[in-house]
């Protein structure tokens, strides 16, 4: 009885191993076959274009414009490179910006607030020369963090009103009354509140302490 069961065990193990490897081999075979097909399909398409410069989105050497995450600026499909004119309107050239010596934060992102504070850029308030510039509003708002172990947020109106008009945020995004906006990080990461801009056109949420900068009693623990 024992000997026979041992035999069965060995047989079953062998069987399972052979099944496993057999499947792996066939999958590999299928993969390489499809890859070969893809190659043969792709090759004539490239030669057809001829003299026109081939923009391969997966080849970093042929990339001109990248978006903020370093991926090719385009229509989101790497198999369909965007046209030159489309690319010209998208994103910026990261190498050109780094060569310009713009200040960066510790995550390697351009610190636009520092650019303003150190007078490196002085954008015009409006294209219309008769437009009056509204001076930035010097008002810091303390937004208490809900948890006991997270620093409170200091929201600077000054830097925001340097770039934006009041109506950009009030009253559609934020009700202009202290404590009447029930914000949460979970909602911000979903693109509400601060997340309407931060993480999209303004610096991302990665550096928590950039906003959570006012120490709490419990937070010091």
């Amino acid at each position: 009885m024992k000997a026979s069961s041992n035999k069965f065990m060995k047989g079953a193990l062998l069987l399972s191993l052979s099944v496993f490897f057999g499947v792996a081999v066939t999958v590999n075979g299928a993969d390489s076959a499809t890859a070969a097909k893809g190659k043969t399909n792709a090759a004539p398409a490239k030669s057809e274009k001829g003299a026109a410069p081939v923009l391969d989105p997966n080849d970093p050497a042929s990339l001109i414009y990248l978006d903020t995450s370093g991926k090719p600026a385009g229509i989101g499909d790497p198999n369909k490179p965007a046209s030159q004119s489309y690319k010209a309107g998208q994103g910026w050239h990261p190498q050109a910006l780094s060569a310009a010596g713009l200040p960066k934060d510790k995550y390697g992102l351009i610190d636009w607030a520092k650019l303003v504070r150190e007078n490196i850029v002085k954008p015009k308030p409006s294209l219309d020369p008769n437009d009056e510039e509204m001076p930035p509003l010097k008002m810091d708002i303390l937004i208490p963090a809900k948890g006991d172990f997270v620093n409170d947020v200091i929201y600077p109106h000054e830097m925001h009103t340097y770039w934006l008009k009041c109506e950009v945020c009030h009253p559609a995004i934020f009700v202009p009354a202290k404590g009447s906006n029930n914000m949460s990080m979970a909602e911000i990461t979903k693109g509400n509140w601060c997340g309407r801009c931060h993480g999209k056109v303004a610096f991302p949420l990665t550096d928590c302490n950039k906003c959570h900068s006012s120490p709490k009693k419990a937070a010091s623990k």
Partner: protein
Amino acid sequence: MKKWQVLALALLMAVPATGFAQIGKLKLDSKVDSMHKAGVGPVIFPHDSHEKLYKCNDCHPKIFKEKRGESGISMKLNMDGKFCGSPNCHNSPKAFPLFECTKCHTNVGAAK
């Protein structure tokens, strides 16, 4: 009948035989009152998926003490580059960032 039973048993045993005793998932809830105020639930830390990526002494005992509740993890300290937010971990491009509440906390947005 018996043949098939043995065969099925062997097939079942053959796959997980390589694994060893794992810690699995840890529930981190020492600061649960504060978490409820912030509208999040306890953290479920997937020790098992970290085991696959790192050696024990990558994290223990330098970053995390090997006793539950002894390390004193808090979001504030994570943000300051300790514990989960250590410079090579969830405060770097190597792992998802700290602001993705739902990746660690349960019941995000439940209270209030």
